[in-house]
């Protein structure tokens, strides 16, 4: 079979490696778009007073920054990794549904265009926060409808992609590779796939209800017609909480691949890691109302959700212990993937601690809707998901391209990321505790110092990612040639094929002992 070239190749390819590349490039482009919005936000928040943007546009920026980063940057990046790595790791020639795979990807640019153009319709983009709460979302102009359509399209792409991934994992593992012999990255994607199929349709339902409340006379969330705005929050967060585990489970998988390689010993407690991941996925369905502690839930509900949330911290903690135990008594080296993996453990765990503190409903009531929460989810999603994506990129890029990336530049990327990331987001915990609400374009004077520090960090962190882009592009174009087994401690089927991995691999499945 001849590989096509040029635009036709990228438009019509059903090859998992090509589609993985498309997902990764798209996600990085959207990461920059969402990042520019973040910089605009931080530029406005650099000092008290309104300097750069009007309050209503500021709300559009915060909303779109959230929607783009969650749905168009992090999720597609994780799917990109799934596409590249899962067939290679299980010894399959391609995904279960190669043509659906192509379709899942090409839905994304359509959705992205809808989101970006929503800024230019009358009334501007949706300005409700990414959580889209009614009745505020009912008040919005046509930008909200565009966002709803975009979310529908993103949802279809995610669900089809998830079905593809789950079918691939269940049906196409090489003979001898039982479920309990799969790499942990594959396990975490299996669970993520189940979560996506279960909850993305619920989000679709919720935003459809908003759409019909807006235009077709329904009153799901309108008290005037007997509806209840709080019900939206229940339905949204029933999706929303599993969603954050969708964002982090594949990241856990990547870290679980990287650390054993650079510790040169097996992952500690493989079975336990599988069980912990399953527990996290299951319990994630039972904690949604911890996003709603200030709404006025009955006492019984406050207590139940507090207990369930405290409980879900346990399997997450177990995973951290297992990673440290993997490092323990290893023979460690700290190339860029390992730097980011260790960095991940450190900063993600900080996010985990603030999550435990937030689980305590009375404390949550004080800090809900403040910068404490913004700090918490940026520690888990940026230091968490994003750093894991960096670790995975440096880890597998040589396999994908055949070239080693520039290690020295990559170390600069790591250390500067750690410094600027913490400079941006650590002060937010103080701001939230001291009383600064979120989603405001201007703030009282006692918050000025930490806001200024955070904004400086944000610009540093943002501009730094151009260095990452440079490193990746250089590695694609050239660099030291690498062996099939790029890293001496690496184990797994992907390291048995040449680097760069040929366009078609495992056309005959290997036998796994």
């Amino acid at each position, binding site marked *: 079979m001849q590989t096509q070239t040029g635009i036709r190749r990228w438009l019509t390819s059903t090859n998992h490696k090509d589609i993985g590349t498309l997902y990764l490039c798209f996600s990085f482009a959207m990461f920059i778009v969402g990042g520019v919005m973040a910089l605009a936000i931080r530029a406005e928040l650099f*000092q*008290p*007073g309104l300097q750069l943007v*009007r*309050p209503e546009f500021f*709300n559009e920026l915060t909303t779109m920054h959230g929607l783009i980063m969650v749905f168009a940057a992090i999720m597609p990046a994780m799917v990109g990794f799934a596409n590249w790595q899962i067939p290679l790791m299980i010894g399959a020639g391609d995904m279960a549904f190669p043509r659906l795979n192509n379709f899942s990807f090409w839905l994304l640019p359509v959705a992205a265009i809808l989101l970006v153009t929503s800024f230019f319709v009358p*009334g501007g983009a949706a300005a409700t926060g990414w959580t889209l*709460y009614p009745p*505020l979302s009912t*008040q919005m102009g046509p930008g909200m409808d565009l966002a709803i359509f975009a979310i529908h399209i993103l949802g279809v792409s995610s669900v089809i992609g998830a079905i593809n991934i789950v079918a691939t994992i269940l049906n196409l593992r090489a003979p001898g590779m039982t479920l309990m012999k799969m790499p942990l990255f594959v396990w975490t994607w299996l669970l993520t796939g189940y979560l996506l199929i279960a909850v993305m349709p619920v989000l679709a339902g919720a935003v459809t209800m908003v759409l019909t409340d807006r235009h077709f006379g329904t009153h799901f969330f309108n008290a005037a017609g007997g509806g*209840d*705005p*709080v019900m939206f929050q229940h339905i949204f967060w029933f999706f929303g909480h599993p969603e954050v585990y969708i964002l982090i489970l594949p990241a856990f998988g990547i870290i679980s691949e990287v650390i054993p390689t650079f*510790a*040169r010993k*097996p992952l*500690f*407690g493989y079975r*336990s890691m599988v069980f912990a991941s399953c527990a996290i996925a299951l319990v994630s369905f039972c904690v949604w109302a911890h996003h709603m502690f*200030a*709404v*006025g839930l009955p006492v019984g509900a406050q207590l139940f959700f507090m*207990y369930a949330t405290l409980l879900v*911290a346990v399997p997450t903690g*177990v995973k951290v*212990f297992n990673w*440290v*135990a993997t*490092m*323990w*008594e*290893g*023979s*460690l*080296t700290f190339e860029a993937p390992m730097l980011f993996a*260790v960095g991940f453990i450190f900063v993600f*765990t900080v996010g985990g*601690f603030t999550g*435990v*503190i937030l689980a*305590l*409903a*009375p*404390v949550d*009531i*004080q800090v*809900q*809707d*403040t910068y404490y929460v913004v700090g918490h989810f940026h520690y888990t999603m940026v230091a968490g998901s994003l750093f894991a994506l960096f670790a995975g990129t440096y880890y597998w890029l040589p396999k994908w391209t055949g070239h080693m990336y520039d290690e020295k530049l990559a170390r600069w990327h790591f250390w500067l990321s750690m410094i600027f990331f913490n400079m941006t987001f650590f002060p937010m915990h*103080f701001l939230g*505790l*001291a*009383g600064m*609400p979120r989603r405001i374009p*201007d*703030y*009282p004077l006692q918050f*000025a*110092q*930490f806001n200024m520090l955070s904004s400086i960090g944000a610009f540093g962190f943002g501009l730094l990612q151009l260095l990452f882009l440079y490193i990746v592009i250089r590695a694609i174009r050239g660099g030291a040639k690498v062996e099939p087994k790029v890293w001496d401690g690496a184990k797994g089927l992907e390291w048995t094929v040449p680097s760069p991995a040929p366009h078609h691999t495992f056309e005959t499945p290997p036998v796994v002992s």
Partner: protein
Amino acid sequence: MRARNFSAAVAYALPGFALAAGESKYGLQTPQSIVAHQIYDLHTIALAICIVIGVVVFGAMFYSIVRHRRSVGHQAKQFHGSTPVEVTWTVIPVLIVVGMAFPATRTVIAMKDTSGPDMTIKVTGYQWLWRYDYLGDDVSFYSQLSTGWSQIENQASKGQNYLLEVDHPLVVPVGKKVRLLFTANDVIHSWWVPALGVKQDAIPGFVRDSWFKVDTPGEYRGQCAELCGKEHGFMPVVVQALPEPQYATWLAEQHAKNVAAATAASAAAEKIYTLAELESEGEKVYARNCAACHQANGLGVPGAFPPIAHGPIATGPIAAHVDIVLNGSKKNPAMAAWKNQLSDMDLAAVITYQRNAFGNSLGDLIQPAQIAADRH
């Protein structure tokens, strides 16, 4: 110019230390109610536990990074796992979180217990201000941000309580259990005073209750805590706690004011004002209420807020102008009905001002008596 803006920015950042009047910038505000005390202590305990766990876990990790490196010749030990170890580090965290749940449960129950209040105040969230109704006392008023937009737009220097000051604070007695009933007029808002440990969403069409009891006299400031539109960051909460005798005096003053306002309204209804008097009063009303959207220069924001300067309504028939200011716009809900918030005098003055300022110069006068008639 840029250097000056930067040093102005730094100048705001540095005094931030002193301005917070003894409040730590790193932690929760000094608690001023029983519930706030409990929350503060709960946070301290939880944070301490997390720090201890962090030190242990990160300590192990950093030890390993230093001692178990290949570069110092350390060989990897190929162990796979250990069930006793897994069980231990699963059970211990479970015990820790169960331990944390006990004090937290007590506080959750205490926060929900609104029984036996000494007074009840209804709090209504509007876009973008609060309204307080003292149930049973016939006292009610609106409470709106009093920081001028000239400060927000960096044309005047910012006062100490920038964005945390209102025209009419919520006044309550010290040491009494105050029950609050929350609802909203339009979208979800959230009433929050950190020092008192109260945050409750205000939901249109529903009432929710909460409570507090203030320990010490003082002024306690908070902000709206649920995104409610463009001025979400500009609708603060100020609670002024007075010792009982002073509260009683304040209450009596409010009753007297009610009587006086009723008399003044009927007096104003008869008085005829000059154009200059109406314009000068109207300019102040405009700055406080209209400038946020229609801008200080009356030019509005294209595509969002129509201009007053040479605008069709401000230069069109008076009746339509009066109607839209009193009753709001059906087409564009962002233009609220002002008749409940502003007095006859305020309304007459601001409409007069709009028709004569910004180059409109129509020479129209609207008297408070006209507004009073138009209300019915």
